[in-house]
């Protein structure tokens, strides 16, 4: 008995060392980015003992924020992510409601088309999407950045699954009270699915905020870029200097990190629900 207890505690000790050791490795690059960003230009940021010693400065942030493009990129990223999130929630919940609770001709076919779309990665669509945007004269525009994200059917799938679980009696009772379909959707299904909607919202926002490949192709004008597209161009102008790009990295990461800290549970729930990268 004592033997097995001792073995258990040695096992746990190894787990603690491994767990927190890995945490240090996981945090090191981020800590290094954050600290580097507040060091004066030309500091020796690779000498560990020097890294955490004064002087510190906010000049790098002043410099980055003094660059007009960074402001446009932040504005574009925020606008695109917000619009994509709001519209995704609206469009997907309406569609999910129809697929879950309304009987109509062709429902099966549409559901199969939705399932198929789940499997198609944007990477395989970049050429035709670009051709379509050229035809519509939308290259370098907000619609070009927003519209393809709205065609992702993941939310329809998730919300339909949730709606399918809402008891029939609730809907029947609302119908007896004279509520129409729109009313049932708006004041019964939406409030009931709050937590699934929240998970979907945060997941959509973070995905959109970090989107790289499509915005990289759809936008060529500097002032129309989003942060992930803009930052690497900003950086290549400063290859020798790594302190200023790190300040830009911190700024670009702040909203995502904040969203993560505030809504961690929802994000993790979102992944468990979807199982899709």
């Amino acid at each position, binding site marked *: 008995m004592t033997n097995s207890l001792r073995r258990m505690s040695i096992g746990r000790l190894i787990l603690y060392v491994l767990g927190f050791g890995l945490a240090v490795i996981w945090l090191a690059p*981020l800590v290094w980015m954050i600290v580097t960003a507040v060091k004066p230009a030309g500091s020796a940021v690779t000498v560990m003992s020097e890294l955490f010693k004064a002087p510190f400065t906010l000049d790098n942030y002043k410099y980055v924020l003094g660059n007009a493009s960074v402001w446009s990129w932040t504005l574009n990223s925020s606008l695109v992510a917000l619009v994509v999130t709001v519209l995704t929630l609206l469009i997907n919940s*309406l569609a999910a409601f129809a697929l879950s609770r*309304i009987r109509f001709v062709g429902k099966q076919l549409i559901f199969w088309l939705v399932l198929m779309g789940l499997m*198609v990665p944007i990477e*395989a669509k970049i050429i035709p999407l670009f051709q379509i945007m050229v035809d519509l004269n939308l290259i370098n525009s907000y619609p070009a950045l927003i519209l393809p994200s709205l065609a992702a059917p993941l939310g329809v799938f998730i919300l339909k699954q949730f709606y399918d679980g809402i008891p029939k009696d609730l809907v029947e009772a609302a119908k007896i009270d004279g509520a129409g379909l729109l009313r049932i959707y708006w004041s019964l299904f939406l409030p009931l699915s709050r937590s699934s909607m929240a998970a979907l919202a945060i997941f959509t926002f973070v995905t959109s905020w970090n989107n790289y490949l499509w915005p990289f192709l759809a936008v060529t004008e500097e002032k129309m870029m989003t942060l992930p597209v803009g930052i690497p161009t900003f950086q290549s102008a400063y290859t020798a200097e790594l302190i200023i790009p790190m300040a830009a*990295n911190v700024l670009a990461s702040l909203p*995502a990190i904040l969203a993560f*800290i505030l809504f961690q549970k929802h994000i993790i729930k979102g992944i468990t629900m979807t*199982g899709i990268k």
Partner: protein
Amino acid sequence: MKLRLGSKGENIAGYLFLLPFLIIYSMFMLYPIVRGFVTSFHKVSISMESTFIGLSNYTQMIRDKYFWEALWNTFYFVLISTPTLIIVGLTLALIVNANLKGTTFLRSVYFLPFVLSISVISSIWVFILQPYTGLLNTFLHKMGVVSEIFWLDEPTLAWISILIATVWWTVGFNMVLFLAGLQEIPEDLYEAARIDGAGTWRQLVSITLPSLKNVMLLTVVLQTISSFKLFGQTYLMTKGGPGTSTRTLVQYIYEKGFIERDMGTASAMSYVLFVVTILFAVIQFKFFTNKD
């Protein structure tokens, strides 16, 4: 049930609710899939005019050694990244599931990089991996490694670098999937095993791992698809180099279509990507529906 279709009113209502989704979905999901297929049989000029050329794009693709190199590079990354990301992901999930003090903190830390943009991730790692001044080499020198390692200038080391950055960035996702699986294992299974005198290792091998079979399958499929789409890490960290040794299929599609302006061949290659992903997705879907 299938035969009992709704009333006329319900039919109209159904499509009204679906209308916004259907419009967008048709334009930016269904139509591109068809259009990409059509384009793959055409030669597209710089001014975007198409001429039908039959299977030429496909034959040209098959004869292009760079296409095969990019395809091989992509498979190579799938082969090295999938086992690594599964093992590390499972290890992290086991650590987080072990009721240690500070579990919430550990889980957050392991997952945190996942919410960062690929641009930020690449930028951090390029600086960490730099020779002479990079954090990693400085650390290795301290540990007694004398030689200077040029992480991104040699194919094998470049792949290792990309793998390290990818693990750091995305393994939190796999951890969450495994964690969900671990939490579904009934506690009485472990209790029964303890009563039978099974130690921690024995419990891991005879209870935990077999119970995770489904999650494991799901994660392997998802990881394979995700690794197959590799673009950002290689494009931003190595530009596909040294030479073309880390150029992936997606990067080659991008270069063919947007730099060489050969949208026809790029579409043919996109269809290879499309077919491979669909293949894996079908496996995933089969697995999802046969779960019970």
